[in-house]
């Protein structure tokens, strides 16, 4: 008779998980990652936008806090880098209070090429409420009298060129939850038909899939994996460290799948043993 005793202490599982993550991280192994359709859609849209409408306005919204950094910050780095390598103008905003400092952290590490602050890009900062989110669609200066660097927005060439957020040709939100994509869908995408994409955490991504299927959003970047895929698409391998993390991601998920199967086998074997015991 098969007898399984797998009453593992939770701490043993934590230790195993830490081991299967640490070993690949220390070995620095990299694997190619297959590109998913949702990621390719975002990449392709931005590339096409630069070709069909050069110098058009892109709004990037950093709607996450430090707790979402491992999943969303790598996405923000690679997408921002792609946009800075193309003839596009960018306005950075954030619906989360941590967003402006995370925006600055991204801008510190990317190659900005010949882009100039105030002309090609600007950081407007924190959007504190829905009223501001709605108001800036028609008048940025009124709702953001100053940028995050203390300059009057009226003095910025990019704001003079695009005085209202509804002039944007593309909006991307990197979102850790609410406020995030839903607000943009309600107040920007639906009324003004601004093409929108989302960089999502793995937990929120399934909830955003209906918007992708209905074509309300052009694409979704899902968690750290999408950042790795994006690095391959933009030929910026390991710009954000996402590709390096993929082997550890695979090994950790394999361990979890193995433990789930083992737990189920144990459950069925135990149920059978109990049934047999009762029938005797």
């Amino acid at each position, binding site marked *: 008779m098969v007898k399984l005793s797998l009453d593992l202490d*939770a*701490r043993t599982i*934590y230790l195993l*998980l*830490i081991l299967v*993550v*640490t070993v690949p*991280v*220390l070995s*620095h192994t990299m694997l190619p990652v297959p590109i998913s359709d949702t990621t390719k859609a975002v990449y392709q849209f931005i590339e096409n936008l630069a070709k069909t409408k050069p110098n058009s306005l892109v709004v990037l919204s950093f709607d996450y806090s430090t707790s979402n*950094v*491992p*999943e969303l*910050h*790598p996405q923000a*780095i690679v997408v921002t880098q792609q946009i800075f390598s193309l003839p596009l103008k960018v306005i950075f905003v954030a619906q989360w*209070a*941590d967003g402006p400092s995370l925006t600055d*952290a991204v801008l*510190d*590490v990317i190659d900005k090429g010949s882009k100039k602050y105030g002309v090609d890009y600007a950081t407007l900062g*924190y959007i*504190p409420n*829905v*009223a501001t989110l*709605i108001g800036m669609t028609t008048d940025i200066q009124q*709702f953001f*009298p*100053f940028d995050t660097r203390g300059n009057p927005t009226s003095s910025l060439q990019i704001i003079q060129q695009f005085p209202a957020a509804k002039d944007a040709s593309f909006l991307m939100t990197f979102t850790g939850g609410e406020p995030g994509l*839903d607000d943009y*869908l*309600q*107040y920007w*995408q*639906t*009324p003004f038909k601004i093409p929108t994409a989302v960089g999502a*955490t*793995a*937990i929120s991504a*399934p*909830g955003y899939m*209906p918007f992708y*299927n*209905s*074509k*309300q959003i052009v694409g979704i970047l*899902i*968690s*750290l*994996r999408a950042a790795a895929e994006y690095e391959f698409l933009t030929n910026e391998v*390991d710009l*954000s*460290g996402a590709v*390096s*993390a993929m082997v*550890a*991601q695979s090994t*950790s*998920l394999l361990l*979890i799948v193995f433990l789930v199967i083992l737990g189920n086998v144990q459950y069925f074997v135990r149920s059978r043993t109990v049934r047999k015991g009762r029938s005797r």
Partner: protein
Amino acid sequence: MDLLQLIGIWVAVFLTLMVFSFLYKENPFFRLAEYLTVGLTAGYSFAAGLKIFANQALIPILVDKSYDFIIPLALGAMFYLQFSKKYSYLYRFPLSLAIGYGLGVTVWSVMQTYFVEQISATIIPIRAADPLTTMNNLVLVSGTVLSLSYFLLSHDQKGVWGGFTRAGKYFILIALGAIFGSTVLGRTALLIQRIQFLVGDPAFPWGALNLGTTAEGRLAPIGGIFFILVFGYYLYRSRGR
């Protein structure tokens, strides 16, 4: 090498391991990290709110002499009258205004975003040129209809109708499984980046998180060793308690 930056990295390593120590057992290090997180988050949000208040209300009134900003500022201040016994009725005015405005801007956009657009997206011809797309369309339409049928609780879920609702339940279970899988994916991503940080991995985005340079990051494990010594001493002292 910037010593202050390095100390910052070690503090971050120490705090990370203080949180991780909960996996071993409940302890004062974890509790301290928890209180620090709550306090810092509250303080940061308060400061961010204050900055917005200064930029959007005080500076326009005091510097730009835009006195029309006094009206929304006064309405906002009236919210606090709910704490006054004598004038508490006055707070209903800004509240009514906020509710009216909120409903006005929300109802239309919610209906359009979540109902009209979503329902239109399911009204599609099931048969497509590509067999895989046909399959996708079939799953999309049947999944929507059957899942919704599960929530029609006014009829007994028996017989043929019971078959429909059972199929709907399976669609919901598959969706929950997908969400669980995604949750695991997300949580492992969080763990991986913390491990990259703790071992001083050069692939960790040190600069993109304002955590210094890769060279400084390589010394991160020293902070980890220090924590292990301190935590080990705590466990030794608290043994048998």
